[in-house]
């Protein structure tokens, strides 16, 4: 540290700006993704329910995020005996 550093305060604001920009890019995507999952789950449930009776909690949708791709895991549990809805 030189005597000049003492008079020149550290400019930390540019670091703050860069960190925020990177962080918020990520957070906005994941907030969007959790909405996406909710929408998918609703619509999948709706399609299944058109044909078979199914409790809402038996449709599970999960998103697994990896570097190159993300996978969507959909698990639908049909209670036995399967009760088909009348066409």
């Amino acid at each position, binding site marked *: 540290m030189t005597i000049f550093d003492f008079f020149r*305060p*550290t*400019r*930390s*604001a*540019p670091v*703050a*700006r860069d*960190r*925020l*920009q990177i*962080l*918020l890019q990520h*957070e*906005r995507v994941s*907030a969007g993704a959790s*909405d996406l999952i909710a929408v998918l789950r609703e619509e999948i449930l709706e399609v299944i329910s058109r044909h078979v009776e199914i409790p809402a909690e038996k449709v599970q949708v999960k998103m697994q995020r990896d570097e190159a791709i993300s996978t969507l895991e959909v698990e639908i549990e049909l209670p036995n005996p399967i009760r088909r809805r009348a066409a």
Partner: protein
Amino acid sequence: MSQVLVVTSGKGGVGKTTSTAAIGAALAMNGSRVAVVDFDVGLRNLDLVMGAERRVVYDLINVVQGEAKLQQALIRDKRLETLYLLPASQTRDKDALTSEGVARVMDDLRESFDWIVCDSPAGIERGALLAMRHADVAVVVTNPEVSSVRDSDRIIGMLDAKTAKAERGEYMEKHLLLTRYDAARAERGQMLKVEDVLEILSIPLLGIIPESEAVLNASNVGCPVTLTAADSAPARAYIDAARRLEGDVIPMMIPADKRVGFMGKLFGRRAA
């Protein structure tokens, strides 16, 4: 036509309550009929900042639960006859605020007021969601500091997704109010610049409120800063912000460091 405005932020201690009181009073000074509503159940403070803490009889929860009429709970300001306060409960559980009850109170308030200014609790939970639920317009209060900006970003996302307006597919009008702005520290590069915060959050700027002793003095005496020190820098910034909410176009001033010299002091700096 009446407007419901929510003052929100995510983070606590950034200046929501101060801003609710200051903007509410500034709108009332222009002749509008204004109700400021405290949604911070259990941690009410708006009554103190407005200097009405000894006049609270009934509160928002009493009205929501049907234990008191709206007219019984509203406290009329001693200084401005068009300004009213609907206080929060200090003792009741915040779960006593039902969504339908709040909707009914908001509808009733719309009958009698031009502006209904809702002071949101901190956080992103139920209380904050109820405060923003029926808003037509939002003021997002942000300090030029990383955690406040991040929380504001979250709140902006919620305003666009979880409000009644958003659910009807309408656009939620949002404005950024940058508070506790310290010009000297901004000029030394130690605090996020106005442009940085605007670029990151990308919502229009409503005003920049400087860090100021006048705000502390105002809360000490229980009077909105726009009434008790109308000529102070923060009060002028709040008064301009209120006029912008009413649709006036006023040039934006960025508070300048008092030490940058004569010209800076005289003219401030225009926002880009």
